[in-house]
């Protein structure tokens, strides 16, 4: 049911962890809903230089989180704002339809982290 890429990112998630000196933090979801994630970013010259995540959720939620950190690292924040649910799902060679909406919080959390960064910058 899951693609090999999903299983790979679930088994060996990239960029797991907290970041004590994050420039922006984005949270999306809630344990009541079954999936929740937190994204920490470091930004330098509008580029995401480091990124970490923590996720509570099913295998695909974890894989999406891992993928979003991999994709976003090195992007400018403007580019990163254009990352979508669909592009993440595509990067993972697809998600089962019932997972497409509920476990696919990566883009939202990333965008929230960027907004948080911008807020903090006063932009």
């Amino acid at each position: 049911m899951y693609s090999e890429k999903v299983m790979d990112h679930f088994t060996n998630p990239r960029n797991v962890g907290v970041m004590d000196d994050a420039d922006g933090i984005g949270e999306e979801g809630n344990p009541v809903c079954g999936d929740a994630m937190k994204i920490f970013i470091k930004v330098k010259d509008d580029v995401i230089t480091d990124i970490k995540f923590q996720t509570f959720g099913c295998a695909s939620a974890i894989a999406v989180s891992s993928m979003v950190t991999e994709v976003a690292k090195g992007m400018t924040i403007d580019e990163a704002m254009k990352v979508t649910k669909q592009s993440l799902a595509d990067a993972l060679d697809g998600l089962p339809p019932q997972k497409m909406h509920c476990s696919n919080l990566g883009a939202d959390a990333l965008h929230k982290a960027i907004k948080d960064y911008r807020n903090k910058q006063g932009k």
Partner: protein
Amino acid sequence: MKKIYMDHMAVNPLHPEVLDAMLPYLKENYGNPMSLYEYGIKAREAVENARALTADLINAQAKEIIFTASGAESNNFALKGIAFALQNKGKHIIVSKVEHHSILNSARFLEKQGFAVTYLPVDNDGLVNPEAVKKAITDETILISIIHASPEIGTIQPIAEIGRIAKEHKIMFHTDGVASVGNIPVDVQSLNVDLMTFTAHQFYGPKGAAALYVKQGTRIVPLIYGGIQEGGRRAGTENVPAIVGMGKAAEITRKDLQKRIDHITPLRDEIISSALKLDKVILTGHAEKRLPGHASFVVEYIEGEAMLMMLAIKGIFSASGSACSSKALKSSPVLISIGIPVHLAQGSVVFSIGEGTTQEDINFFKETFPAVISRLREISPYSEGWENTEDSTCTVKK
């Protein structure tokens, strides 16, 4: 990699002798039991022999067994069949909140057809209180249906006691025995039931074979109308190989049941005691009144599907939430009914073992389970105090 099957509540492998018994009916003995010549007669005899063996397993008479194709079918048949048969007597039905979806959704269908349904709560162990059943009875009550054992939390209900109450009030009593029959001794006489659902795949019989026990003299309206198969109560060309398999599986189970229970109970106990040593792991269901091969938990801070996927990667196959509908629901109504908060209910995991489970398997489990929990907790944003994060609104529709 070794594969350790710990999801016997979902389905069991076929016993090799069961397959052997079925094969002739998948090959040369292909007749339709309704046919009057040799092939039909052989098929008819095989079906009736299987009926007798199936009846024996639950201490019923052969003519009280109606073969169906699934537990869900038997449950729908029992609820709607009794409701439609007795609607002139009354239109009130009592079920519990921890029934399988095939009962709950049949009850909801009947509500749309003008029936009233009481959904009885359970205590924190998942038990229905027989006194509460008694109190729920009205002059209009025609049927009580209470699950015998829960596939999700393992709790075994006081069916005999509830049956006595139903009998005193002359109300039809059905129990869903899918998770119990084949796993514990079940005797419809001492349980005081009028109807009971059970399936072959719970005791090493085939998929597509199930039954509804209907006590002699009980009026029931068919769910599937048609020809005169099953005494006119369930139409459709009989699935002879599956029925033969169910009979054989019942025969073997009757003989082996105690041995199986003696084998799996200590292994199950080891699962439970080792898991409960871990931090923030909670047993769900009753500690003693539970199915012998059944161990179910909620694990804090992590989610059930991720847990079972990671266990599967290590070679341990388990379930989360309702065993037969892992994909159906994010949070299980059964866990909510026993007072588990929603965020915690997400971390449900069920291990159900069987006659093939070995001490070696359990040893491997005891190494693996803690490691899986630790790994997922490393990834999780939550820890102590997370209950404060609970939020009743979900932005994303589940």
